[in-house]
C-alpha cells in the first residue's frame, strides 16, 4: 500500500512529454505486444482479470464495459473522456500534459481491443495547453508510424483525434459528451440505448476516462493477474488522487488502492496547515458526500471502504477543509456550481438546483428560516434518482451530507444571521 508510480513514472523526467523520452522508458512496446502477440479478445480478457474499474467517477469495471460491444462489423468508436470538470479533480491533467504518449498508447491498445479504428479525445476547452500537447503527441506518433494507418506495421489502423469542448461540465457526462462531439448541444441522452450499442453517430462506442485508458498498457505489459495483485479485494491497481484544500502539500499522488486515508492526508500530503484542525473532507470530488474529521479514522482509500463510510471514491479528488471553513459557504459554493452547470433539460435538476441556491443565498444573507433546512432536504429527495442524468444526483452529495453532518452550523446561520467560524 501507499505510493506507487506506474502512471506517474515518467512525469518528473525532463521533456517527459516527448516521444523519445517515452520510448526510452519502454513506451509503445506494450502496443507492439498487443498488436503482434495478442488477439483483441485476449486484451479484453486481461483487462477483465485485472479488475480495473473506471477512474472517471462511477467505477464501472472496464473489461465488463468493453464486453458490451456487439460483435458486428459496423464502425465502432473509442472516446477518451478528458473533460475533467468536477471541482477538485485535476489528476488527468498530469497525464495529458506530462505523459501524453502513455495516454495515446492506452487509447491505441484499447481501441484495438474493442475493434475501433477511430478514437477521439474529448478535452475540456480550458485545457488549451493540454490539447496542444496531445495534438503534438498525436503528430509525433503518427509521423513515427506508431499510430495512424498500419500502426507499427501491424496492419491495424487507428486514427486519434483531439476535440476541444466548449466549457460545460455536463459534457463530461458520457452521452452529453457524445452529443457535443457530434456538434450538437451538450445535452445528456436518455438511456437505453447505452453508448456501447448506440453511441457516437449511433454506433457502438466505449467511453473511458484518461486515467482508465492510461492504466491499460501496464495490464498488457504485466498481465491482468499482476495488476489484480495490487489493491484490495474489489479495488485493484493504483489510482491518482488529486488532493486540494487546507493541506500543506496539495497535488496529485498515485496510491495503491486501499491506502489509509490518514496516510494520504497526514504523511503524503503533509497534514493540515499549522494551527488548524481538520474539519471535513470531500473524498471523491464535489459530487461525493462529505465526511466529518472523525469519520475518516481507519477508512481506506478504495471503492468499498469509502462506500461503507457513507461516501464515494469518485474521481479521487480529495478536498480538505480545516476548521476555518464555513460549511454553509462551502455547500453554497458547490450548489452554485451545479446550478450553473445543469444542462437544464430535466425539470428536477434544472429547477431544484436553482431553488437550492436561492434558499442557501438567503441563509447566507442571514435571512434563513429553520424550515428551510427541511425544504432543502425535501428538494433533494424529489431530485434524487429522478433526474435524466447523474448530474442531478451529483448536485446533492455535499448539500445533503453538509446539512446532515453540520446541521448546527446551518442553524447558527439561521438563528444569528452570521457565521460561527467567520467564513
Amino acid at each position, binding site marked *: 500500500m501507499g505510493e506507487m508510480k506506474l502512471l506517474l513514472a515518467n512525469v518528473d523526467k525532463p521533456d517527459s512529454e516527448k516521444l523519445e523520452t517515452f520510448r526510452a522508458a519502454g513506451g509503445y512496446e506494450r502496443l507492439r505486444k498487443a498488436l503482434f502477440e495478442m488477439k483483441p479478445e485476449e486484451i479484453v480478457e486481461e483487462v477483465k482479470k485485472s479488475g480495473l474499474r473506471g477512474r472517471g467517477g462511477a467505477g464501472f469495471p472496464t473489461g465488463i464495459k468493453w464486453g458490451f460491444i456487439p460483435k458486428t462489423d459496423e464502425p465502432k468508436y473509442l472516446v477518451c473522456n478528458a473533460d475533467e470538470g468536477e471541482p477538485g479533480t485535476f489528476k488527468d491533467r498530469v497525464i495529458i500534459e506530462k505523459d501524453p504518449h502513455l495516454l495515446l498508447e492506452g487509447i491505441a491498445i484499447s481501441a484495438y481491443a474493442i475493434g475501433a479504428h477511430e478514437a477521439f479525445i474529448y478535452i475540456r476547452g480550458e485545457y488549451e495547453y493540454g490539447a496542444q500537447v496531445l495534438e503534438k503527441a498525436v503528430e509525433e506518433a503518427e509521423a513515427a508510424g506508431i499510430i495512424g494507418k498500419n500502426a507499427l506495421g501491424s496492419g491495424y489502423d487507428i486514427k486519434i483525434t483531439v476535440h476541444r469542448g466548449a466549457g460545460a461540465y455536463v459534457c463530461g457526462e458520457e452521452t452529453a459528451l457524445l452529443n457535443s462531439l457530434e456538434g450538437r448541444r451538450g445535452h445528456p441522452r*436518455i438511456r437505453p440505448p447505452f453508448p456501447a450499442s448506440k453511441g457516437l453517430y449511433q454506433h457502438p462506442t466505449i467511453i473511458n476516462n484518461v486515467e482508465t485508458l492510461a492504466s491499460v498498457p501496464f495490464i498488457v505489459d504485466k498481465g491482468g493477474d499482476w495488476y489484480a495483485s495490487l489493491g484490495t479485494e474489489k479495488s485493484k491497481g493504483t489510482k491518482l488522487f488529486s488532493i486540494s484544500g487546507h493541506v500543506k502539500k496539495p497535488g496529485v499522488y498515485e496510491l495503491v488502492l486501499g491506502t489509509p486515508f490518514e496516510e494520504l492526508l497526514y504523511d503524503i500530503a503533509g497534514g493540515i496547515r499549522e494551527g488548524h484542525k481538520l474539519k471535513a473532507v470531500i473524498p471523491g470530488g464535489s459530487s461525493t458526500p462529505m465526511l466529518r474529521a472523525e469519520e475518516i479514522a481507519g477508512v481506506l482509500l478504495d471503492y468499498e471502504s469509502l462506500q461503507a463510510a457513507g461516501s464515494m471514491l469518485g474521481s479521487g479528488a480529495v478536498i480538505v477543509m480545516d476548521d476555518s471553513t464555513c460549511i454553509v459557504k462551502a455547500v453554497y459554493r458547490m450548489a452554485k456550481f451545479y446550478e450553473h452547470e445543469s444542462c*437544464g433539460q430535466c425539470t428536477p435538476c434544472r*429547477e431544484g438546483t436553482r431553488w437550492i441556491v436561492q434558499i442557501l443565498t438567503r441563509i447566507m444573507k442571514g435571512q434563513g428560516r429553520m424550515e428551510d433546512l427541511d425544504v432543502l432536504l425535501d428538494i433533494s429527495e424529489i431530485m434524487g434518482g429522478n433526474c435524466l442524468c447523474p448530474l442531478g444526483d451529483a448536485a446533492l452529495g455535499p448539500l445533503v451530507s453538509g446539512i446532515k453532518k453540520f446541521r448546527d452550523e446551518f442553524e447558527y446561520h439561521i438563528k444569528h444571521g452570521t457565521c460561527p467560524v467567520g467564513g
Partner: protein
Amino acid sequence: MSTVKVTIDGITVEVSPAATVLEAAKVAGVDIPYFCYHPHLKPAGLCRMCLVEIEGMPKLAPACVTQVRDGMVVYTKSDKVRKAQEGVIEFQLLHHPLDCPICDQAGECALQDITFRYGKATSRFIEEKELYPTKFYGPLIVHEQSRCILCKRCVRFSTEVMGGADWNVYWRAAHSIIGAYEKDVVANYFTANLVEVCPVGAITSRLYRYKTRIWKLEFSESVCPNCELACSVDLGVRENRLYKVKHNNPHPTPWMCDKAYFAFDYVNHSERIVWTLKREGDKMVSVSSSDAVSEIASRLSEYRGKIGFVVDASVSFEDALKVRALAEALECRDCDYRVYGEDYLPLEGSVKSLSDIESARAVAVFCGDVGISHPVLALSMAKAKMAGTKVAVVSSFDTYLGERATEYIVPLPSKEADCVEALLDGSYRDDLGVDKSEFERVLEIVKEAEVFVVGTRADAYLRNRIKGFAEGAGKKVLFLNTGSNALGMCRAGLFSEGVGNILEKVKAGELKALFVFNADLFNTYPNRELVKEALESVEFMVVSDVFFTDTASYADFFLPATTFAEADGTVFDLFGNERKRKRVVVPTEDVKDISAWIELIADAGEISLPDVQEKEPSVAVVEKKAEPLDGKGLEALVVFPFYRSALYSNWCSKFSEVSSSPVVHLSLEDASRLGVSKGDKVVVESSGLKFEFEAALEEFLPEGACVLEAGFDRFPVTALLKGSWLTKVEIKKA
C-alpha cells in the same frame, strides 16, 4: 406480431413489445400525467412528470421512454410516485407567473390540468420569481418565456419534423430560454405547430390573442380549404364567429400549415359584403335577393348559349355540379375553374397516400414550390429526407423544400421544363444553363426515384411527358394542382378550354354574359389587360363572392357568397379521396352558397336544372409550347408568396402582415451588378409599366432570373403578364 402482458395499477393489458409504459397505460385506461411526451414527436424523457414505479427497479422510471417487458408490474399511484409527481409540479410552478387569467392557453393548458389533478394546493417557494419579457416574433406568434416549462416540444418539432428551422434552446440550466437565434419574425409556413405542440401558454397565436376562452368555443371537424392536402381541421366557433382552428385528427399528417391556422379571419371580416347588390349607373346598390334573382333569371334567357362561367377551384363539388347544371340548362359549354391560367387538367396519378412518398427510397420533385402550393406535402418530404429518403428538387424557385433536399437545381425559369425533359432523357445539354455535375447528381436520384411529384408550374405538355415516362419506368407520379378542389372541379365537368379562352371569347363578343364565382380574376389571371378588356366588353355579369373585389366592381349583380366555414360540401384531395366540409358558421343576411343561388335563379326563371353526370377529362395530346420569351432584361417569374397564397389572404390580418410588401428576389450576381442590397427599393419595369418592389437576395437563384411577388391588394403585377407567369422585366434601383 407477438404481444407482452403488462400490469398497470392492477389492470393487465396486452401490448406490442415495442410499446412504452405510457402507451400501455393508455391502453389500460390509466392516466399518467405528462408534459414533454407528444404522440407524434420522438420521446425525450425530459419533464419527469410521467415517473412511475416498476417492480424490481430501484428508481422511478419515466413512462414515456421506458419500454414494456413481459410481466412488468407498474404502479402509478404509489406514495413514491405521488411524491415525485407533486415535486415535479411544484418545481414547474416555482417561477411560473401563474397568470392564467390573462393566458390564452388557460382551459387547455397541461400545466393547469395536471396541477389541478396531481399537484399540492400550496407552495413552499418564497423566493423572487425570475420572469422574462414577452417576445413578439412577428405577426403570428408571441413567446412568453416565463410560462415555458422547457419541454422542448416546439424545438423537437422544429428539428425532427421541419429540420433546419431557427427555433431552439439557448443558454443553460434554469436560465435556458427558447426562441429564434437570428430571426425577429418567426413565420416559417409551419409556425402554427409551435403553438399547437406547446402544452402551456408559452407560445400563443397573435390572431387568437385575448379574443375568447377556449371553453367558450364549440369545435367541429371540417377540412382546410387552402390546398389539395385537405387537412382535417377543427373549427372553434362562438356566437357564430370562427375564432380558432385546431388539428386534432392527424389526417393526412399530424401537422398543419399556417394557412389553416392563421388565414381564416376573413370569415368574420367586417368588410364582407353580406347584401345582394345591383349596379345602378356607377354605383352598386343593395337590393332584395328575390328581386335580384328574378332579374338575373330574366336577363339570362337573352344570353342562352352565350354565357361563360368561371369558378374558383376552391368551391365544393356540389357547387361545381350545380354551376354545370345551370350552364347545361342554358346551353353553354364555356365553364372553367382554371383561374390561374393553367392549361392542364388534373391527371390521375398513381400515388395513393403520403406513405407512398414517405417510404420511398428516392423522390424527385419538378417545377413548383410545394412548400407554398401544398405545404404539408413539402413538410412530409422534408421529414422523409431526414429519415433517409433521397429528395431531388428541380425548380426555378422553391422556398422550402429546395434547401432541405438532397439535391436542388435551379434552372432559369425558361429552362425549367427543358431541364426536366433532359433528366427524363437521361442526358445533359449545355443549353440548359445548369451545372453539369449538379445535373448528374440529380439525375442519379431521378433514376432511383420511386415517386415523381409534379408541381403546379408544370404545363400540360410536360405533365403528359412525365406521365408517359413514369408509366414506362414503373414509377409512381403525383400531379399537383392549384386550388383545393381541382379534382372535384374536373369530376364535375367544369372545364372547357381554359379561363383565358373564355375571356378571349367575351372580348370577341362570342360570349356576352359572364358568371364569376369566388374569383378575383385581376388577382389570379396572368393577363390583366385581357381580364380588363373582357370585363369591359361583357354585356352582363354576375359575380358571387365573399368580398367586393376588383372583378366584382364590373358586375351587374353581386351575390354574397359563403366561405368554407358556412356551407357543407365535398372536396377531393390530391389522392382523389372524398373529404367533407362542414357548416359551422350560419350565413348571415343574404349570404348563400353557390348551389342555393343557382337554385333560386333557376326557380325564378323556371329553368329546369338537369341531373349532370360526372365527366371524364379528355386527355388530349398537347403540343409543346414554343413561345419565345421576348423583351429585354431579366426573366421574371411571378409567384404568390406563402403569406399571400391562402384564400382571401388580403383579408387575413396577421397572416398577410408577414408578407407586408411585395418583394423581388434577385440573384447575387444581378443584385451586385445593379448595386442593389437586401431591403432596397427597386423599380421593375416592363412595357411601360412600373412597379416598386423591395429587394431580397437569394443565393440559389441563377444570374438572369428574378422572382416577383404577386397577391397584394391594389398592387396589380398581373399587368406585367401576357398569359403566362413568366415574363421579362428591367430592374433599376429606386
